[in-house]
């Protein structure tokens, strides 16, 4: 018995022990569950807060009941989706298929460029529609793709522009989307309005309805009106969000732009540093050396004045020459930094003066409605000056032409020669960018672009496009 009881006790004891273990486990599980729940609540609260902040940040209205005008505009918008969808689908499909099928006979190329422009134009109309009917104020019109570029380049710009592609796809997708939104809108409003106005025409129906049914349907209709208003609002907001994704400026483009700006800023800093180093070197090796020599010769002349007046005169002569050479060097240096005539008389006069100093004939054509901003003018001048310097140094040309024109917010400077070609914009070596590389950096500094076409055998065309900002 003792044995048994001891055994039983042991067993029971063990049982109790395991009971205790189970209890502990259960408590543990319970605790874990509670923590999980707490975490979930916390997560929900956080998500809610995030949504609130998001709404605040993006100035989205709190999902309150939309006003009557809003509802009318939203309904109009959703109803317009279908006819516009039919139109855009037809236009895009027709243009693209015509363009592609005639591309082999080259007629297609202008059609495809035209398609790009039409797609952008329709997209801008759509953006206007979203701004007007759905208050999507941040959907701003996009600029024309490849505006002001030569034809073939423009074709390429249109083709590689991801926004044009997105817009095109949007215009195709508008048809099925429009079918859906049009149908839903018409059906929902018909049911709600039909039910609400049931009392006004129930008498005309073949079966007569008892009053409570009429009342019930009317009340149901009124409830439906509110519900449908919310649903329409929801669909409209969804449309707007999708449109923002497709027609809005994408974050990637913004990032690309920011990257471009940081790079061009760094290049400007480099170009400015290089320019300062060049000036420092020119002063150090040129004028400073000449003035030192001048002071030295004047000193020697003073020493000799009493004993050797003839020798002193010779030294004075040479000091005089030295002083004049220093003046010439300083003048050339100052002109290289910023020619006075550019400030006084503008690009035409400055470039004409530059051309007059060139050993080969340089034709200058400046066609500007007004003087550009000083920074832009200076950059344009340097493109021309560096271009002409390069022509003289490397091209072996017999003549050159500089043209400065402006259209559609772009100032373009073109230097062309009849030389041997084969020029290129070298990659920067070390700290100091030189020649065309430095010029490219300088052009990037005003957000412009430098292009060089120089096939072996020539001709060489150096072209800078500088945005005027208007």
């Amino acid at each position, binding site marked *: 018995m003792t044995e048994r009881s001891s055994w039983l006790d042991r067993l029971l004891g063990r049982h109790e022990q395991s009971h205790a273990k189970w209890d502990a486990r259960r408590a543990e599980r319970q605790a874990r569950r509670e923590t999980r729940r707490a975490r979930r609540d916390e997560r929900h609260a956080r998500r809610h807060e995030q949504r609130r902040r998001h709404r605040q940040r993006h100035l989205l209205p709190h999902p309150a009941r939309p006003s009557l005008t809003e509802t009318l505009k939203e309904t109009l918008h959703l109803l317009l989706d279908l006819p516009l969808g039919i139109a855009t689908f037809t236009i895009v499909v027709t243009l693209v298929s015509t363009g592609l099928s005639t591309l082999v006979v080259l007629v297609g190329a202008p059609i495809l460029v035209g398609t790009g422009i039409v797609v952008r134009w329709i997209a801008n109309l759509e953006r206007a529609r979203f701004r007007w009917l759905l208050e999507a104020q941040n959907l701003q019109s996009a600029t024309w793709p490849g505006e002001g570029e030569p034809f073939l380049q423009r074709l390429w710009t249109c083709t590689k522009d991801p926004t044009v592609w997105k817009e095109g796809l949007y215009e195709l997708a508008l048809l099925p989307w429009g079918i859906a939104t049009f149908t839903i809108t018409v059906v929902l409003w018909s049911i709600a309005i039909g039910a609400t106005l049931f009392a006004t025409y129930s008498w005309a129906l073949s079966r007569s309805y008892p009053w409570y049914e009429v009342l019930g349907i009317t009340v149901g209709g009124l409830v439906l009106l509110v519900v449908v208003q919310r649903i329409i609002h929801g669909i409209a907001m969804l449309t707007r969000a999708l449109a923002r994704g497709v027609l809005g400026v994408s974050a990637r483009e913004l990032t690309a732009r920011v990257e471009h700006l940081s790079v061009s800023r760094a290049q400007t800093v480099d170009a400015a540093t290089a320019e300062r180093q060049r000036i420092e070197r020119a002063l150090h090796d040129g004028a400073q050396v000449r003035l030192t020599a001048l002071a030295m010769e004047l000193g020697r002349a003073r020493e000799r004045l009493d004993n050797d007046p003839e020798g002193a005169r010779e030294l004075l002569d040479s000091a005089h020459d030295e002083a004049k050479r220093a003046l010439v060097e300083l*003048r050339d240096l*100052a002109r290289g930094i910023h020619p006075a*005539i550019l400030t006084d*008389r503008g690009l035409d*006069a400055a470039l*004409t*003066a530059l*051309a*007059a*100093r060139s050993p080969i004939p340089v034709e200058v054509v400046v066609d500007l409605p007004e003087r550009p901003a000083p920074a832009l003018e200076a950059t344009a001048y340097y493109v021309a000056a560096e271009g002409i310097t390069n022509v003289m140094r490397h091209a072996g040309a017999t003549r050159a032409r500089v043209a400065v024109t402006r259209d559609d917010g772009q100032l373009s400077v073109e230097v062309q020669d009849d030389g041997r070609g084969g020029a290129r914009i070298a990659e920067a070596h070390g700290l100091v960018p030189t020649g065309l590389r430095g010029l490219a950096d300088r052009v990037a500094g005003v957000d412009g672009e430098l292009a060089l076409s120089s096939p072996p055998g020539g001709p060489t065309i150096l072209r800078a496009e500088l945005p005027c900002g208007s």
Partner: protein
Amino acid sequence: MRVVIAEDSVLLRAGLERLLADEGIEVVGAAGDGDELLAVIGTTEPDLAIVDVRMPPTFTDEGLRAAIEARGRHAGLRVLVLSQYVEDEYARELLATDAEGVGYLLKDRVADVADFVEAVRRVGDGGTALDPEVVAQLFGRHQRDRAMEDLTPREREVLGLMAEGHSNGAIAEHLVISAGAVEKHITNVFAKLGLEPDGTAHRRVLAVLRYLGA
């Protein structure tokens, strides 16, 4: 000769005054900017105004504009414009009114005192004095001219010196040739450029300047 000087740098102004005084040229007034120059010319009525292009307040070309203005107001006033830079564009503006008694020189030329004083006297006497750099620029514009290409190097030299405003005698001295040889070169130049040969030296200079488009 009575001269006024318009120059905003006091150092240069004093230097010019001393230099001219040494040569027996009377400096009757001085000005530091364009407006002051016009006022000083009004009160002192000089024969010649020596004017710096860059002066306050904008430090661009007010000296040039004041000089042109002064010539418009005072008939017979001669002006000699000095500049740190010369551009043929400015020369053209200056000569547009009337080329008699006009000079346009680099400031550096002051260093060659004798040449500078000669230019001052020439302009004071109603002649012209154009900087060799301006003439080089004018030539630059005509470098593809058939007629200009036909000139011999010597004839080009003579044409250049004539455009600067030098007399036949000065040209002969400069090129170390006889006055007769200069005369012959000038006749050739005029024939090749298709210009009407004219008696007085100054009218010949004007014809050359007109031809060069200055």
